[in-house]
């Protein structure tokens, strides 16, 4: 990878080559009701890295800090301590438009006030590249068309957003994020409203995009087994702390998972080297 940022110039060339795409070092964050009161929720310190072409899953029960971590990665707020860098540049210091050219976030979408066509929606992903009134160029249309093709949603182009099924909508939202041409693609529980077929299809697609394109993908999810199956590495959060980070094999430890999810679980290693989690059956009590 050619060095994109190298902001300091002091860093050695060797270190720059080895610089990971995303580097989270001892990052922490805290919420408080007011400036003076004690923090209600603290996150971190968290440390992990992500390389190009990697798919990382962020796991953890509700209120474990997954969304806060995603907000930090998306540059919505700056970490209180530590450092989160994309290709060597601190994310929270990026200009909003430059940040939007490098990081895309897929969330549950807000309710639309006025109807939009799919192509209009996907073109919104080109906003960070436009000028003042942002009349979309031919290149913008090509990129948006490309993004739709990448998620296999070409045929949906002229449909209204509010007439799509859950799976179709998810693909269109993903296409808008791809139209941003990001380096870092963040997804907040993208499998939430999908059936099992839709979940597998989405994760396969993300896997394929990560392998073929330049994206680094981070997915927040509750799906332990799908995460084990499709991700390169896993970050396991518990009460705002990063409990474990590593390959599925390293992270999926029965005692750790049981502690985090507060449920009787069984972890078995499958032939392909990926662990599988099941609920310990009722026959055992």
């Amino acid at each position: 990878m050619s060095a994109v940022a190298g902001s300091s110039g002091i860093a050695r060339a060797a270190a720059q080559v080895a610089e990971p795409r995303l580097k989270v070092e001892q990052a922490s964050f805290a919420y408080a009701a007011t400036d003076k009161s004690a923090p209600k929720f603290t996150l971190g310190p968290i440390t992990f890295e992500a390389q190009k072409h990697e798919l990382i899953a962020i796991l953890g029960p509700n209120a474990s800090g997954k969304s806060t971590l995603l907000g930090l990665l998306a540059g919505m707020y700056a970490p209180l301590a530590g450092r989160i860098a994309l290709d060597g540049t601190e994310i929270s210091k990026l200009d909003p438009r430059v940040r939007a050219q490098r990081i895309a976030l897929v969330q549950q979408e807000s309710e639309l006030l006025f109807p939009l066509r799919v192509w209009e929606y996907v073109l919104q992903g080109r906003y960070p590249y436009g000028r003042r009134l942002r009349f979309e160029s031919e290149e913008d249309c090509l990129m948006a068309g490309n993004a739709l093709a990448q998620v296999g949603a070409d045929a949906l182009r002229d449909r209204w957003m509010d007439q799509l099924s859950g799976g179709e909508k998810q693909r269109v939202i993903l296409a808008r994020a791809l139209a941003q041409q990001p380096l870092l693609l963040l997804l907040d529980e993208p499998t939430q409203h999908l059936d099992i077929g839709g979940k597998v299809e989405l994760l396969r697609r993300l896997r394929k995009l990560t392998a073929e394109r330049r994206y680094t993908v981070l997915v927040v999810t509750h799906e332990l087994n799908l995460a084990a199956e499709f991700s390169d590495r896993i970050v396991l959060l518990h009460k705002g702390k990063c409990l474990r980070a590593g390959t599925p094999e390293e992270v999926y430890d029965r005692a750790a998972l049981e502690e985090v999810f507060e449920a009787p679980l069984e972890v078995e290693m499958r032939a392909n080297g990926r662990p599988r989690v099941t609920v310990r059956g009722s026959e055992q009590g």
Partner: protein
Amino acid sequence: MHLETKPESEFQAPKASLTQQSGSIAGVRAFRPLTPGRLVFICVMLLVALFVAVVIALRMGTFPISIRQIVLTLFNGAIGRRAEIPSDYWLVVFGLRLPRIALGILVGAALSTAGAGYQALLRNPLADPYVLGVSSGAALGAIISLIVAPRVPGLIQVAAFVGAVATIAIVYFLGRRGGQLDSGTLLLGGIVTASFLSAVIMFLMTTLSGRDLRGMSFWLMGDLATPPSVNMGWLYFLLAIGVGTIFGTAADLNLILTGEQEARHLGVNVNRVKLVVYLAASILTGLAVSVSGAIGFLGLLVPHVMRMMFGTDYRVLIPTSAIGGAILIVLADTLARTVVAPTELPVGAMTAIAGAPLFIYLMRRRVR
């Protein structure tokens, strides 16, 4: 400093990947983004319609004057040959009807643009300066300035702006529930604020009836019969600033309407855009109310008609709402002058007759 192009190039060769899939080239053509040419074309068409409306408004009235005479008078007036124009035509066209039309265009454009702005700002399609009580707040500000310092030029506009800014801030906080802006609570807060402010206005008008404060129906319903005490050019200058400012944020507003969080992630400076639109829409409301009173429902009526005609893109909606508002109010005022002639209706009564049913229709459609 980190603006250099990204190194990897799979995106840089879109054509190659597109040709691999049949139908994709046609697919790209199916994107129909707004072009500057189309925007200008739409605006020119609407300006022609506005000109037609102006001619109709000049034609209608108790003093008969033919279309031919109007065109001749306008033409000779425009090239400065006043001597060619019969003096009664000059008086009717340039002395009476045209100033009133110019005032109408100003007010219609200002209120419609302000309505479109508030709708994006509050993410509520039913927002309108009148419904939200902003117009009443501006009217109260204007009245207070007339009581305190009636002879300071331009003070009434400033006071109406302050009234508008304060009212929308109050309504905004009334409309919050659990930290979130709730659509129904917001409208309710606006309607209650509007009737409270109207009551205060009625109280002031009744107790101070001896003073020169214009009539109660002027402030509560609005009309265009009284020429403004300030220079019209100055008012048009403010109009241009207000409309131009909101138009400048149109691309940002499109994204904010899709979702504030998402707009942030796409690189929009949401807080700055909202502040700018809030101030500009309040300037426009204050400007309109200071010269015509609280004319209702234009800010609701016009943006919705324009959305039906030209779509929801704010880059089209802002300029078309400004021109469309001008057309609508010129026609409405012509009706107000002529339906029960020689008596005149306030133009606000005409817009309310058209606007209130639309409001109910839109509200029911949303509830469904």
